[in-house]
């Protein structure tokens, strides 16, 4: 019963089972519908194309914010991990941004930049950069100094150093930041859409919240959870396996 392949499915099945029990006990589809109550609504949203339109809009925002946050956070974390002097200067900033509520940053970005796509993506990016930088900074501190010396003696170019010496050492830290990043980013994107966009899963949830339509809120939420699970299983986990295969060889 404890097979590595079977256990995740059994775990997921037990969660759905718990949902079914709770829905049957509630006995009110308006409050908590059963999974099979959602299927016709899900089918209708798919056939009308509306589900894909909003999924696509959210996914695009998640991808932009993820790419920007990972690039900026990795760069910042690496610099702070390598230079104690820069770290002393930037660490208080990091603490401020880590403790700034996501909602405050989102509202400020909308107020300062306007209700635009750029403001939405910047707000999400700024929320995630400090987390990525904090994780990658630890990787930067743990870099092997002998490999630095090696690169110096053999006069390796910056691109070779980055690609073959620094990034492979940072890979476990980047992977950890990426996995937690994706999960956090899409949740913040939903808040951003909820507050100031006219498309995306967050916007639809806002709409059905006003209509008190729990089933449609769940349809949109679960659709995106499925997309993120697929990204985790088919993109992030294979990438992580690839960059760490030398450890298991």
């Amino acid at each position, binding site marked *: 019963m404890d097979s590595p392949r079977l256990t995740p499915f059994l775990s997921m099945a037990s969660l759905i089972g718990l949902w079914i029990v709770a829905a049957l006990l509630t006995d009110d589809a308006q409050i908590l519908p059963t999974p099979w109550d959602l299927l016709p609504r899900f089918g209708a949203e798919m056939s009308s194309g509306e589900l894909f339109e909003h999924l696509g809009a959210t996914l695009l925002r998640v991808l932009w914010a993820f790419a920007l946050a990972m690039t900026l956070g990795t760069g910042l974390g690496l610099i702070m991990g390598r230079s104690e002097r820069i770290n002393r200067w930037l660490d208080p900033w990091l603490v401020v941004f880590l403790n700034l509520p996501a909602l405050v940053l989102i509202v400020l970005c909308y107020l300062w930049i306007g209700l635009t796509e750029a403001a939405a993506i910047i707000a999400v990016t700024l929320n995630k950069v400090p987390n990525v930088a904090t994780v990658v900074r630890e990787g930067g501190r743990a870099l092997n100094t002998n*490999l630095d010396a090696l690169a110096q003696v053999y006069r390796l170019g910056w691109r070779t150093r980055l690609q073959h010496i620094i990034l492979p050492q940072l890979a476990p830290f980047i992977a950890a930041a990426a996995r937690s990043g994706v999960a956090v980013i899409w949740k913040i994107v939903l808040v951003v859409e909820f507050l100031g966009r006219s498309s995306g899963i967050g916007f639809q949830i806002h709409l059905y919240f006003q209509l008190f339509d729990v089933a449609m809120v769940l349809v949109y939420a679960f659709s995106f959870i499925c997309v993120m699970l697929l990204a985790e299983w088919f993109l992030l986990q294979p990438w992580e396996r690839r960059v760490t295969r030398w450890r298991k060889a």
Partner: protein
Amino acid sequence: MVFVAALGKARDALAKSVITVSIDSKRFGASPVLGALAFSIAAGETVALVGPSGVGKTTLLRIIAGIDSDFEGQIVRPQTMAIVFQEPTLLPWRSVLANLTLIHKGLTHSEAVHMLDDVGLSGKEQLFPGQLSLGQQRRLSLARAFAGRPELLIMDEPFVSLDRETAETMLTLTENLIARHRPATLFVTHSSDEANRLANRTLVMKPLPTGAVLTPSDA
């Protein structure tokens, strides 16, 4: 006439020098580590650097290699250098072959395979360094050093922490590679046997309150 001839010989020797070291001082904070010391190594010459633990041998090696630039003095280095650390210091996430070709961009596939063959690692090109024994990792480290045909080879206790048999094999291998490639070589050792086998000359570092110096008779 005698003076002019001597001057000419000295100039020739200097011209043949692959590396010229002239250090005035090196400090870690307020503590002096190295005092005034100067020497040069000619092409094909192998020099052993010996001295008690903590005297500053590795610090001197790091300065010579260009890893530590915080010192007073001057070093004239060649274009191509190679270093062998106490630990193999490989790229564990890249294959054995890539550990040579990524470091030496001009190295062709067949040259890299030939180099691996020279150090007894044929057939292991596609393995990761973690799949090799410590002795094989040291061989790969040596192969990487010689693959770039360095004018100057620096080795920091290259045979330390190896069992007697492996150390002997590595010593013979290094001896052969040095004889074939003939770089100027500077290596740190605590073993008089290694110094006698490999070196043409031995430099002895001696600690002084003003920083370590080379003893005049050996420098």
